[in-house]
C-alpha cells in the first residue's frame, strides 16, 4: 500500500512540472497588458506606464521563466501583482473557502445522486425511475449560474429564508456559514448530482443482476442489507471514480458560483488573476490547485484498494 502511495506521489511531480510550464506559457501568450488591467479604466497612460515600471514587467521572457523556477526551487511561488502579497499566502486565504464550498456541495451531490440512483435502479422502468432520471437530466442541463439566480429569487427575494449572497466564515458563526453556503453549494451540487445519479443507477443495475445478489435474496436476507451491503458495496468502484472526477468539477464549477454569491474563494481569485494578467497569481494558484487535485486522485486510487481487495493484491 505504501509503495503504491509513494509511486503515485512521485508520478505527480512531472504533472506539476508540466502544469507550471503550461500556465507560464499560456499566460504569456494571452495578449493584454497587466499594468493596464491592474491600473483600471480610470488610469491615464502615464499612470499605466509608471505601474509597468514598478511591477518590473519589462524583463525578457526567459529571465521571467528563470526567476519563476528559481522561486519554485526555493518554495516561493512569487508575489501577486494585483494583491501585492505572496501567492501562497493569498491562495491559503481563499483555497479553504473553495474547498469547504466544494465539500459541502459534495455532501449534497452524494446524498441526492446516490439516493436517487439507487431508487431509480430498484424501481427500474417505473415512473419513479423516469422521474429520477428526468431530475438528473435537468440537473445536468441547467447551468448552475441560472439555477443560482432562480434560487436567489425564490429563497432570498420571495421567501427571505436565505441571504442573497455574501460569505460568513465558519469560525465567526457556524449557522451564518450554513446559511451563506447552502444556496451556492446546492446550485453547484445539482449538476454533479445528476451525473452521479445516472452512474449510480447503471452501476447498481449491473450489480443487481449478479448471481450473488440473487443468492443473497434467496437466502432470505432483508432487502436493506442486500442493497446496502451486497449491491452498493460492489457498485461503489465506478461511483468512487466518478466522485473523484466530481470533486475536480466542483472546484472548477465554483468559479461561477463564487462570483454569483460573492464568496471570496479560489475561483474568484483566479478569475480576477486571469482577467488582470496577474501572472504569478495564476501560475502559483494553478499549481496549488493542481496539487490539491492530484492529492484527491491519489486518495481515490487508495480508496480503490480499500474497497476492492483485488486491487490491494495487485
Amino acid at each position, binding site marked *: 500500500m505504501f509503495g503504491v502511495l509513494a509511486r503515485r506521489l512521485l508520478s505527480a511531480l512531472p504533472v506539476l512540472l508540466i502544469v507550471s510550464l503550461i500556465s507560464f506559457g499560456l499566460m504569456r501568450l494571452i495578449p493584454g497588458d*497587466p499594468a*493596464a488591467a491592474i491600473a*483600471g479604466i*480610470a*488610469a491615464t*497612460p502615464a499612470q499605466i506606464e509608471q*505601474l509597468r515600471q514598478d511591477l518590473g514587467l519589462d524583463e525578457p521572457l526567459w529571465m521571467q521563466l528563470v526567476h519563476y523556477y528559481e522561486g519554485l526551487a526555493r518554495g516561493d511561488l512569487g508575489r501577486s501583482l494585483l494583491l501585492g502579497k505572496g501567492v501562497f499566502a493569498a491562495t491559503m486565504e481563499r483555497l479553504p473557502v473553495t474547498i469547504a464550498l466544494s465539500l459541502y456541495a459534495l455532501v449534497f451531490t452524494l446524498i441526492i445522486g446516490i439516493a436517487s440512483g439507487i431508487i431509480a435502479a430498484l424501481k427500474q422502468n417505473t415512473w419513479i425511475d423516469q422521474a429520477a432520471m428526468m431530475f438528473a437530466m435537468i440537473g445536468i442541463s441547467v447551468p448552475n449560474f441560472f439555477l443560482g439566480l432562480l434560487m436567489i429569487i425564490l429563497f432570498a427575494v420571495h421567501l427571505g429564508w436565505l441571504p442573497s449572497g455574501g460569505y460568513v466564515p465558519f469560525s465567526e458563526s457556524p449557522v451564518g456559514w450554513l446559511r451563506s453556503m447552502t444556496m451556492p453549494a446546492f446550485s453547484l451540487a445539482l449538476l454533479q448530482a445528476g451525473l452521479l445519479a445516472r452512474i449510480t443507477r447503471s452501476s447498481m443495475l449491473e450489480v443487481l443482476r449478479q448471481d450473488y445478489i440473487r443468492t443473497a435474496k434467496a437466502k432470505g436476507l432483508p432487502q436493506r442489507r442486500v442493497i446496502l451491503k451486497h449491491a452498493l458495496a460492489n457498485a461503489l468502484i465506478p461511483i468512487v471514480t466518478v466522485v473523484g472526477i466530481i470533486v475536480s468539477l466542483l472546484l472548477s464549477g465554483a468559479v461561477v458560483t463564487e*462570483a*454569483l454569491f460573492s464568496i471570496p474563494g479560489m475561483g474568484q*481569485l483566479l478569475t480576477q488573476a486571469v482577467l488582470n494578467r496577474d501572472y504569478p497569481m495564476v501560475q502559483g494558484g494553478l499549481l496549488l490547485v493542481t496539487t490539491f487535485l492530484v492529492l484527491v486522485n491519489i486518495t481515490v486510487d487508495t480508496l480503490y484498494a480499500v474497497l476492492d481487495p483485488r486491487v490491494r493484491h495487485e
Partner: protein
Amino acid sequence: MNRLLLASTFAATFALPALAAPFTCPSRGGDIVFGQEANVNSLDQMTSSTISTRNIAMNMYESLMTRDENNRPILELAESMEEAPDGLRYTFRLRQGVTFHNGKPLTSADVAASFNRYNRIGLQRSTLDNVAGWDTPDPRTFVIRMKQVQPTFIEALSSFSVPIVVIPSEHENDDRQQLRAVGTGPFRLLEFVPGSHARLGRYDGYSPNTAFEQRTGFGGYRVACVDTVTFRIVTEASARVAGLETGALQAVEDVPTRSLETLRRNSAITILPLQNWWIQIALPNTAHGPTANLAFRRAVQAALGMEDIMDAATDGNYRLNVGFQYPNQPSYTDAGRETYNINDPARARTLLRESGYRNEPIIILTNRDYPPMYNAALVMQQQMRAVGINANLRVVDWPTSVQMSQRVNSDEWHIFHSGWGTQPALGALATMQFLVAPGANYRPRDDKDDPDVLAAWNRMNNEREPAARQAAFADMQRLVLERAYAYPFGALTKVQAVRSNVQGYVPFRIPRFSNVWITR
C-alpha cells in the same frame, strides 16, 4: 504673501442659508451594506488608480486638499494655504485637533512622511516632479518648495485620482499595496477581506472640518452617523438587485436598466441617477491608414449620430454632451460644438470622396468588458457602413485593447473605444493629458504631438491667470474636435439605488457615507 483662504471661501460658497449651523446627524447608529460591482485588491490609495479602491479608501483617508461638489480644489487637512508671490512656495497650516485612527495627533511630520512615501512609490508621483522639496518648520506647518512656477500645481495636488493621502509617519516605509490602513477620515477600517468585503466603523475621534457646514465633494464638514459601513463585493448585477430588494444591501451601484422598472415600483427603494459618470468616446489612430487622413476622420465625424450611439451604449441613460467637460463644471466649454452630432450622411460621403478612401477595411477596436464601449462600437460601425466605410469590429478584452491602442505607429486598429470617467471629473487639465504625449490617445505618428494642440496644452499649464488657462482649454478642445482627434459621444449616467430609509446619500464619484443616516 498672497494668502489664499480657500477653506473659508468655499465654505461660504456652499453653506446653505437654511442650514447655518453645521450638519448634525438626525439619527445615529445602524449599519449600511453597500453592494460594490468591482473587486478591491488593496486599500493603498497611493499606489492604486482603481475606482473600487477609491470607493472605500476615500471614506477612511484624507489629504491636504481635495475637491468640492463641483470638483474645485478645497482644503481638507489644512486650514489655510498660502502661495508665495513668486509662486515657488506653498505653505500649509494644518487643522488643529486632527487625530489618526490610532489616536495619534496629526503633525506636519506625518504629512512629510506621506509625501516621502508617495514620492517613492505613488502611482502619480509625477505630480511631484516639479517639487524641489518640503519642509516642516513646526508641527503645524508644512511647506512645499517648487523648482519652477507651476500655476496648475494646486489643481494637481488636490486630485482624487491617486491622492497623496496623509498617513502616520511610522507607516512611511510600508510596501506598495501593503499600507497599514490608518487614516484621519470619519470611518476607520474594521475588517478587509479581499474579494469579499471591507467593513468600516465610525471613528469617534474624528474632527470635522469646521471651515464648512456641510459635506461637499470629498471634503467639507463630514460626520459619520452610522455605526458601520460594509462594502460587499457583488460583481453580478442581478445579485446586487436581489440584495437591495431583500434588504441585505442598503445601497448599490450600477443598477442594470432591465431592473429599473421593477425597482421603481418598490416603495422601499430609491433610485439615484449619477449623471456624468463618464464620457463615452472613440479615438482614431492618426499614425496609420485612412484615419491618418483628416478628411476621412471628418467623414467619420459627419456620419455619427450621437443619440443612437449613446442610447445603445447606455440603455437610454445618457445626456448629449459636447467636448470633454460637463456643463456643471467651471471649465465647461462647448468650443467645437459644430463638429458634434452632425449625423449628415451626404456630407460624410462628400468628405469620404475628398479623402480618397478606397474601401480599405477600418478596424474598430473595442471590448466586451465594458458593455457601453462594445454597444457604442456596434452602432458606430453601422453608421460608418451606411456612408460607405468598410468598418469592422475587433473585439478583445480591455487590457488587450489598451495594450494595442498604446503601441506606437500600430497598424492593428483604426478607431479605439474607451470611456473617460475620473479625468473629466477632475477637470480640463486632467482630461486633456489624454491628448498629449506620451501616449496621446489619438496616437500621432511616432508619438509626436500635433504642435498646435501641444501649444494649447502648454498654455493650459503655464498661463498664470485662470481665465487665460480656460481660454487655452477652449482652444485645445476646438482643435481636437476640428481635427477629429477624438469622437466624444456623450455623457453616461450610472444608476445607483438605496433603501428608502437611507437618508442623505447623494451619488458622487465615490459612495460617500459621511452625513448619511438611517431612519428607523
